[in-house]
């Protein structure tokens, strides 16, 4: 245990040293913000605003300073300011990121470009429409389905036992905050509107891998579609931009492995063992 803690501390020190070496300290930056009001059919243009910054200033801080002191009309969606709500996803210097989680000191150059997330219908300035994204998420039936659990009869309700190893199989995917960064980075979503996208497919794997869920076949049928699971070609962009370490590409490939029969389906094996016992 002590060894593990020491190892983690050493890793932390190494990372913090690397981070400090990469840091770019400046007193001000220029924000280049894409402005457009689609409802008014306004053509898109960029506004540039000079913003004073400190070492800890995030892109969201800089945008809010610009909104507070220079131009109140900047359209931006944000909420928690601590990478928990996933509201402030936007393209920062061309890459989808959370504005509250990206420090200005991490970015090179004196100009920081902020644009709305690609692959989402644009509403105004940095705000995009997530309805299609959430629709794909809903289509994956993101809830536990278990025919053995009769939720209408409290007397029949019982606890579902899970080992920590079972939890580890899906926990990572349940950390998704639905910020849409993976959806904006995916090259397949960029070409195919019906493709559910990395977020939805990773959520499908999250419930597929959950030992409490028994709707395996039903879930397979949902993603086994012309625009479904097999449209992913493992560009890995979703995992490289995910701010929470969900690694959607991993979930999608594992799900496909199960579908193709490459990976052993532990739930199916357990089910067969149960049948043999009976």
């Amino acid at each position: 245990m002590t060894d593990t803690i020491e190892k983690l501390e050493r890793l932390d020190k190494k990372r913090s040293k690397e981070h400090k070496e990469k840091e770019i300290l400046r007193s001000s930056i220029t924000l280049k913000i894409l402005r457009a009001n689609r409802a008014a059919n306004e053509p898109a243009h960029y506004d540039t605003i000079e913003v004073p910054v400190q070492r800890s200033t995030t892109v969201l801080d800089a945008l809010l300073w610009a909104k507070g002191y220079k131009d109140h009309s900047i359209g931006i969606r944000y909420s928690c300011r601590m990478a928990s709500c996933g509201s402030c996803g936007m393209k920062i210097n061309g890459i989808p990121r959370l504005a509250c989680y990206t420090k200005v000191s991490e970015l090179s150059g004196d100009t920081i470009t902020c644009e709305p997330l690609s692959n989402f219908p644009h509403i105004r300035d940095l705000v995009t429409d997530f309805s299609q994204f959430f629709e794909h998420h809903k289509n994956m039936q993101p809830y536990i389905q278990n025919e053995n659990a009769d939720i209408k009869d409290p007397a029949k309700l019982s606890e579902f036992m899970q080992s920590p190893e079972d939890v580890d199989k899906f926990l990572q995917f349940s950390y998704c905050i639905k910020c849409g960064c993976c959806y904006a980075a995916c090259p397949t979503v960029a070409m195919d509107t019906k493709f559910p996208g990395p977020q939805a497919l990773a959520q499908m794997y999250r419930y597929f891998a959950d030992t409490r869920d028994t709707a395996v076949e039903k879930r397979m049928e949902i993603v086994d579609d012309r625009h479904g699971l097999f449209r992913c070609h493992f560009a890995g962009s979703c995992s490289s931009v995910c701010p929470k370490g969900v690694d959607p590409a991993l979930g999608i490939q594992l799900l496909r492995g199960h579908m193709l029969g490459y990976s052993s389906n532990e739930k199916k094996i357990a089910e067969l063992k149960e049948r043999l016992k009976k």
Partner: protein
Amino acid sequence: MAPSYIYKVCTGGEEVLMEAIDRNNREGIKGWLNPSRYGAERISYWLQRLTGVGLLGYFIGHVYETSSLTNGPDAWAAMLELTQTPMGHMILLLVIGMSTFHSANGIRLIFTQGGKGLGKPGRPDYPYDAVSLNYRQKSGIWIALILAAAAMMYGASVLFGGE
């Protein structure tokens, strides 16, 4: 694409324009133009696509080339002469490179897309490095690139080396 309009019906029955949404905010093919934004795997995806399209073009050309046989030996010889030029050799070199990369990278993808060589899901920790984008994938991409370069060099030595 034209913007789509969302209306809301008020209690009085009148329709009020709530918002006009431009649905055309997808990156499309434009997203392919800068593959270096997302790391080695995205570059490999881009190269796999590009080499695939290139090989399809070669395949069509190859079918056209061999079909000249039906017009007699002279037509076939004339067609072969076209490939014996420096430009013809350069195209063949490209084909060698493309086919080697596409095959080697394709083998990596067969395993990867079946969930092999990606690592196991675990509890993510800061700075949240993705398990799936691991050294095995990067090594696979580099091996495919090195094999393609080696095959092209060997091909160049045969095609341009002369006797």
